[in-house]
């Protein structure tokens, strides 16, 4: 579904330089994997590239096959076709942020429904179903700022899955939770993604947690170069 070859992203210069290298990454429908590495190693950069919100440097191959359509992401970025990327994003992608990323001016239901409304999908009970599975059905009418961090994360997961995307990305979804809560939220995310056959990529520093959830793990290795900058490289299956 997603195919990346020799995709690089560099930020900064000199000793502030940070480079991410992705020699090879293929994602298939229903696949679930975790990207593991210490904080600041480039997990977020990788997820932002996959979420089509960060442009790769001009090199390599980055393509998406979706419902029989083929999209050359690298070319879309080169052509500054931001609205085409936005369209792919809202159709194919769900993103769970570390801090929820909920819109404070909408209630929980409004937040979860937003991706469906954006795609003009019917309100067919999917939102209520997800809310029930994620144990947040009682909070649908509440504002996000009245919820606990764990509840906010579950709302965020519901929003990422609400429109039935092919790809769900989660960036440290459990980092701000206590271990018991973290385990529960991780479980729910993996379960719900599995139920809908969604390809899932979870970035985390907590390898035991994702292993206990049964995910394959991709490491990110990093090294300091002679110029003081950092080069991180996405590893292979381990």
């Amino acid at each position, binding site marked *: 579904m997603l195919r990346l070859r020799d995709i690089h992203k560099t930020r900064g210069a000199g000793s502030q330089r940070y480079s991410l290298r992705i020699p090879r990454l293929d994602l298939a429908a229903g696949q679930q994997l975790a990207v593991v590495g210490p904080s600041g190693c480039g997990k*977020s950069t990788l997820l*932002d590239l996959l*979420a089509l*919100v*960060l442009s790769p440097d001009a090199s390599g191959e980055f393509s998406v096959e979706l419902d029989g359509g083929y999209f050359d992401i690298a070319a879309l970025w080169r052509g500054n076709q*931001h*609205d085409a990327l*936005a*369209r*792919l*994003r*809202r*159709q194919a*992608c769900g*993103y769970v*942020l*570390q*801090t929820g*990323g*909920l*819109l*404070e*001016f*909408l209630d929980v239901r*409004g937040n979860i429904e*937003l*991706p469906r*409304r*954006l795609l*003009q999908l019917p309100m067919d009970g999917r939102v209520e179903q997800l809310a029930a599975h994620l144990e947040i059905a009682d909070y649908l009418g509440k504002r996000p700022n009245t919820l606990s961090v764990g509840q906010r994360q579950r709302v965020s997961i519901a929003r990422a899955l609400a429109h039935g995307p092919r790809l769900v990305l989660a*960036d440290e979804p459990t980092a701000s939770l206590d271990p018991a809560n973290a385990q529960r939220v991780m479980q729910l995310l993996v379960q719900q993604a599995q139920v809908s056959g969604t390809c899932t990529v979870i970035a985390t520093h907590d390898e035991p947690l994702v292993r206990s959830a049964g995910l394959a793990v991709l490491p990110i290795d990093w090294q300091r170069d002679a110029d003081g900058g950092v080069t991180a490289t996405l590893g292979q299956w381990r």
Partner: protein
Amino acid sequence: MRIGLLLSLAWADYRTEARLSICAVLALTAVITPLLVLFGLKFGLVSTLTERLENDPAVREVITLGGGRYRAADVALLSQRADVAFALPRTRQIAATADLSRDGGGPALTVEMIPTAAGDPLLALAPQPSETQILLSQSAAEKLGVRPGDQLGARFGRRQNGQVESRQLGVTVLAVLPLETFNRDGLFAPLSLLEAAEDYRDGRAVPRFDWPGREPATVGSRVYPGLRLYAADLDGVESLRQHFAASGQEVATQAATIAQVRSLSHNLNLVFWLISGLAVAGAFAAVVASTLAAVERKRKALAVLRLLGFPTAALVGFVLLLALYSGAFSLLLAWLLYAAAEVSLNRLFDTGSGEFVCQLLPVHFLVAVLATLACSVLAAALGGWRAAQIEASEGLRDV
């Protein structure tokens, strides 16, 4: 991208930030309301003054000075002009008097005779007299003690071959004119009566009244020394003045009074535009600042919207809508406040004549609405542009 979704999202955000929204509305209202009142006063004052001028026929009168020579054909030509409402020749002033007395003697009153005809602007409400009917001024009617319908004797005298002789004509008082129409002793009669009096005084015969003299004047040969002339409107006064000046005829007009009101209107316009320019510049800066601040504040929310796949145009629209909501509410509030100010100002300056010192037409409101919304969008455009620059990957991870 559905407009309805964008409207409801922006509205939800606007409502959530109710306090800031109210501040923005009040700031705009504080600019729009005084401008509405100021413009209402300017428009009300100028239109009241202009209306007064237009409703007073004396302002539109063009009086020929010195001796002129006009034939009936000249006057007919003059009344064809678009800028002329009424033109009627006058007979010589010295021949245009009559000694009025009540039937059965009594003291005689010498009055001016003024020719009139259908369409006379001075006598818009009065009935039209026929040859032996007259309209009497109020002062003359009071001195003679007559009322409409009474009979009077009008005596015309002449000196011929050293002898004083006179003839009397029975006339009917058709109506008494109010003081504001004519404030001297005078009568309004058809031109033919004044011509008869002039002929008799010139020693000519007037066969229809059986007055003796030389053979009567031939039709069309008469030369009139002056005119009763009224312009069709205020602009006509100036164009008629120029017409007469070009032919060397001096005239007296109210052109100076009209020019005064015109220049007052012009100067008030300048003052209004100066004040509104300053006020709008201030309001513009306020909207720019509040929109930029809003974009900074909502950076994360905007980044999330972008992450969810909102196109750039929708993000810009989101920011512009916030400014438009403020514009719309401040217009509503300003309109309510203006309405209250208009009522109290008009009550304060009430002259009882049905004139309004402060008033606005629907088209003025329409212009205010369009200008406010256009300014809001324009001022918010910079914020919108900044919102469009926000990348989904930035700001997402700020807590």
